[in-house]
Each structure stands twice: as C-alpha cells, then as structure tokens.
C-alpha cells in the first residue's frame, strides 16, 4: 500500500508522533482524537467534575504537543500523555484545595452520562453502581483501578502516571478491587 494512502487513524502512535513533529496537522489531529477519551478519564478520575476535566484535557494536550520534540519514545505516547494529564489534574486539585475547605474526597460522585441520576433503579444497575463506587475509592486506589481496567496500563505504567512505584500501583489496584467487591456485596 502506498504510504500516502494510509489514513492517519490507521497509523501507529509512533508514526503519528513523527509526522506531527514534522508539522503534519492531520497526524496531530489523529493523536488528539485517539487519546481524548483516555485523557478525559484520567482527568475525571482526579477532579470528578466534568467541566474541570475538560479544561485539564485541553491544557494537557497543549503541553504535550508543545513538548513533542522532547518526547523520547521511552514510554508509549498514551502513557506519556496520561502522565501529563495527571500532573495537570493534580495541579488543578492543589489550586481548588487552597480555596475550598470542603475535602475533595467528600465530593459527590460524578453521575455516569448514560444513567439518569433521577432513576431510583440506578442502584440495581451493576455497572453504574460499580462506577459510582469506584469514584469513592481513595485517590491512588481509584486511579490504579481505573488505569488498569479502563486503559489497560501495566502496573509499571500506572506507577509512572500517578507518581508511585510499580509495586505500590499493584497494591493500590488490588486493595481498590477488594474494597469495591466488599461494597458491591
């Protein structure tokens, strides 16, 4: 196949990064579209507010694209982007905590877009319930579970994103899962 016939969406992240560095905006767009969902989920896992998460995603992508020349490819682009997103999210949380006395951990869980929050039958919906309970886990357990299950990251990659060791990421994951199982019973 002619290299020029391949659509950006069919290229690997490595190829897209190389092309984006060379000024290929279609490659840049493809990277953004491919990873927006994951970046949003990471941001949401931290701040648990959709509007704040959207802002964090924009800031994270801006930083990532500006730093693209410095991306060495040691980690996967997705992991690198999520690390930047997590840093942005933690920064946003630090700002909120300065102004808001209410502990972030006490914030109500963000309702799932697919579920009508007024529907009392939500509790019977195992998926929505699991997701709502995930939101109540302590931050590192919540992030470890979310990054493992939602994004398929290895424990080493999870550690890189949340700023912990691989071992700590593994422990946080299994503790989080155990707690969720207890709550779900």
């Amino acid at each position, binding site marked *: 196949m002619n290299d020029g016939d391949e659509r950006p969406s069919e290229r690997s992240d490595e190829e897209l990064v190389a092309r984006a560095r060379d000024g290929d905006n279609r490659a840049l767009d493809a990277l953004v579209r491919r990873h927006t969902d994951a970046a949003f989920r990471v941001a949401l896992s931290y701040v648990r507010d959709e509007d704040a998460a959207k802002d964090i995603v924009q800031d994270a992508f801006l930083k990532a694209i500006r730093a693209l020349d410095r991306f060495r490819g040691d980690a996967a682009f997705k992991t690198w982007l999520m690390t930047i997103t997590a840093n942005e999210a933690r920064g946003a949380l630090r700002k909120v905590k300065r102004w808001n006395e209410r502990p972030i951990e006490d914030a109500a869980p963000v309702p*799932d877009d697919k579920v009508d929050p007024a529907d009392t039958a939500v509790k019977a919906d195992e998926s929505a319930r699991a997701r709502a309970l995930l939101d109540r886990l302590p931050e590192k357990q919540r992030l470890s579970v979310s990054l493992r299950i*939602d994004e*398929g990251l290895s424990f080493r990659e999870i550690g890189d994103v949340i700023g912990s060791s691989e071992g700590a990421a593994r422990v946080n994951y299994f503790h989080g899962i155990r707690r969720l199982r207890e709550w779900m019973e």
Partner: protein
Amino acid sequence: MNESRCGEMRELLPLHAAGVLSDPAEVEAHVSSCDDCRTELQLIHALLSSRPSAPEGLADQVVFTVRASRRQRAQPWWGLTAAAVAALALGIGVTSSSVAPVDVMAPEFATELLEEDLWVSGDGLLAGAPALEALSDEALEQLLDELEFDGDGGAA
C-alpha cells in the same frame, strides 16, 4: 483454590475482560472453576461497560485549540520585518543592526500576507513564502538563531 494460581489469574482478568489476551482459554478455564475470580471478573466487566467517554465535541475543541496554538507559535517568524524575510530568502546573514536599512528590498508578497495564511503546511514549509522553499525546518531555525532579536523584537 490455589492462592498463587488465583494471584496469577487476577493479574490477567482486566486483559481478559478487554479481549486482548492472545490465549484466553487458560483464564476462562480457571474462572469457570473459581468463584472468587469469577466474581472479580464480573466486577471488571461492570466497570468496563460503564467506562466514561469524553463529552461530545471535546476532541474537536482540543484539535482546534492545539492547531491555534501551533499557528501562534509559527507566527514569530513573521514578527520579522519584511526586509528580514527577504534577506533570508536571498540567503543573506542578517543581524538586528542590518535589518532596518533593507526595507527597500522587501518583496511585495511579504507585506500582503494575511494572518490566516501564516500556517505551517503539512510538508513543513511556510505557506505564502515560496522564497524559503529550499530551506528545511532545521535550516530555518538556525537562521532564526543567527538573527540577533531580543524578546521584544518579535521572533521567539
């Protein structure tokens, strides 16, 4: 149930649920006979099926923002005077002290470019500047470094 076996399988459950295991049979065989792991797999499936997506339009918004940022970063090139651009096109080394007197050399096209035309095309060349066509991005950057502009001069 063998705990270490369960430990191995539990590490694989998220991968199995995501459908990315090359050989899922081993996990499936274990889960069929282990209540504990089966319950955990159900939880993982429940979480996966409620995985949130970015709000509609966010990706478009980010694309727009990123492109605008790139455009803005490309603009400092045109913070140069038209004379400096002409000088670059002619391959003349330029310093800030020599820029001003070269006004008379400014090619007409350089002064008529609109802001929206200042765009880095997909092939890495500056749109609307055919005189710079022969220069690579690295060469252009090197020439920019040779220009003795301070922060107020326009070129970043």
